[in-house]
């Protein structure tokens, strides 16, 4: 069954209150769409342009209030969904993921185990441009890398599009917005920008599903997603964990195990 037919059916039977997917924009663009009536399901599209991680909407109050929703999900959206489940932000029964295959066929993945099984068959591959830039950064000396990020981050305007586009940045009260006390400078000067992006990268270490939506959202083209990717890869190397693979994943950086091989914590 294709996405439009499936969505229509789900909305007609009342199985879901809304289908979160994509619709065509006016300028050859695609954008998130919230289809709440069966008659409007025909506006849904799903093609290679639909890269945005729709899981970012699943923790939002407006969406939670709708009731159970279906989401037309690319693999990165499914990964983010599993991570949100692992972090107890989304319950299994709240979301019906619809995996859309290349031929347009839709598979319902009603429980987390189905999502896990589906994802196990999907290889996670970084985009060629990201791989290249990561390799270039790895090859730099520490001083060169520092200079690279100082220059890049000086262009940040602190619009927080990266944070708001990220499915894992769901805090209702973000450290960046906290002003009593103010932990991080508000201003987009060198220190404020550096602290913001360092804090964000550290918060995402071990939780980032490497969708790259933060970098895609940046209006001035800073590859901020690479900071998160790098931290994620470090966690993977150190702890063998990869976010977005299981709905029951303990967070590597805050989990204590009595049999931890390191002794400093005991």
């Amino acid at each position, binding site marked *: 069954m294709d996405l439009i037919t499936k969505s229509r059916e789900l909305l007609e039977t009342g199985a879901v209150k809304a289908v979160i997917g994509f619709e065509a924009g006016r*300028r050859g663009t695609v954008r998130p769409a919230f289809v709440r009536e069966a008659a409007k399901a025909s506006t849904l599209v799903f093609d290679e342009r639909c890269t945005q991680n729709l899981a970012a909407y699943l923790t939002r109050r407006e969406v939670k209030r709708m009731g159970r929703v279906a989401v037309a999900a690319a693999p990165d959206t499914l990964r983010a969904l599993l991570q949100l489940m692992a972090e107890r932000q989304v319950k299994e029964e709240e979301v019906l993921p619809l995996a859309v295959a290349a031929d347009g066929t839709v598979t319902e993945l009603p429980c987390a185990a189905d999502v896990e099984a589906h994802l196990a068959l999907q290889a996670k591959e970084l985009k060629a441009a990201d791989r290249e830039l990561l390799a270039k950064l790895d090859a730099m000396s520490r001083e060169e890398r520092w200079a690279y990020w100082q220059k890049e981050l000086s262009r940040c305007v602190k619009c927080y599009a990266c944070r*708001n586009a990220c499915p894992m940045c769901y805090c209702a009260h973000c450290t960046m917005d906290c002003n009593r006390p103010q932990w991080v400078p508000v201003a987009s000067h060198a220190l404020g920008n550096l602290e913001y992006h360092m804090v964000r990268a550290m918060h995402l270490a071990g939780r980032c599903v490497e969708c790259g939506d933060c970098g895609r959202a940046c209006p001035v083209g800073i590859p901020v997603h690479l900071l998160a990717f790098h931290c994620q890869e470090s966690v993977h190397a150190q702890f063998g964990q990869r976010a977005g693979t299981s709905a029951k994943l303990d967070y590597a950086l805050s989990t204590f195990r009595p049999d931890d091989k390191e002794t400093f914590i005991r």
Partner: protein
Amino acid sequence: MAETRFLPSESLDTFVKALRRDGRRVLAPTARDGRAELNPVEAAAEIDLEGLQTALSAKETVFPKVERILEYSLSGGGVDLRDVAPKAEPTVLLGVRPCDAAGFGALDAVFNWDTRDRFFNARREALAIVAVACTRADDACFCTSVGGGPGSTAGSDILLTPVQGGFLAELVTEKGAALAALCPDAFRPDPGLEKKVADLPMAFDHAALTASLQGRFEDPLWERQSLRCLGCGACAFVCPSCVCFDLVEEADAREGRRLRTWDTCGTALFTLHASGHNPRESQAQRWRQRVYHKFSYYPERYGRLGCVGCGKCTRACPVDMDLQEHLLEAAQA
């Protein structure tokens, strides 16, 4: 006045160098590392006039993303409070689009509404604008619907319109004429060439839109339009006319400074009260505020729109909040 001259292509470099010799910083669109942004340039060869728009607007030249406005230090039970002088370097914006130039009018309306803002004005007075008319437009552009145009001279000191072999240079203001006088040989007499700019049909009537917004405050339209909005500030921060700022203190026990930084009505924190109450608690209300501010409150208070139709917000939006489309929907209600 608008005296028209001809600036041959090869004389653009002469012009840039004359401006530099005169001690002015020249900021122009560049395409370094595949990014369209304003950067200081030394020669015309560095300038990219092919790109339609820079991602950020030119407002940073008069309203920086962060500006120190006062400093203080504490000692011996007393407070030493010091004014900070505005940093106003003589600057020429060269090659911005007429919409970006028009944006300064919207900034001026706010920064000189009741109090004359000395930081804004010092920078504004030190700034001259040499815009380049658009010979093409894209689907995000709608300057003609908000009173501007691809060849509009509003806000420019000189408007350059590309023609065969160079540019028609309209010396719009005294400031512009003074710039041209720095290299009189570069600006030749007008050979009577016809000015041809991009054809951008009007998408909506802004007066009708402003009228239509009256009484639509509670319309479900805003919720429908904003459901996908992520609540970031990308649209406001790239906007040539968005002017909201935050005042923040950075201080320790001995000294501190007060900073003015960009802010945006797109975020929940913008209106959050100390009590915890938020008068704009939903993203729909924040999106509505953005539209009303630009298209209803601005005309009411300043007699002009708070939008120049550059389309930067639409291009920057990570979820394609297409302003023109949303305005059309509101205008046709």
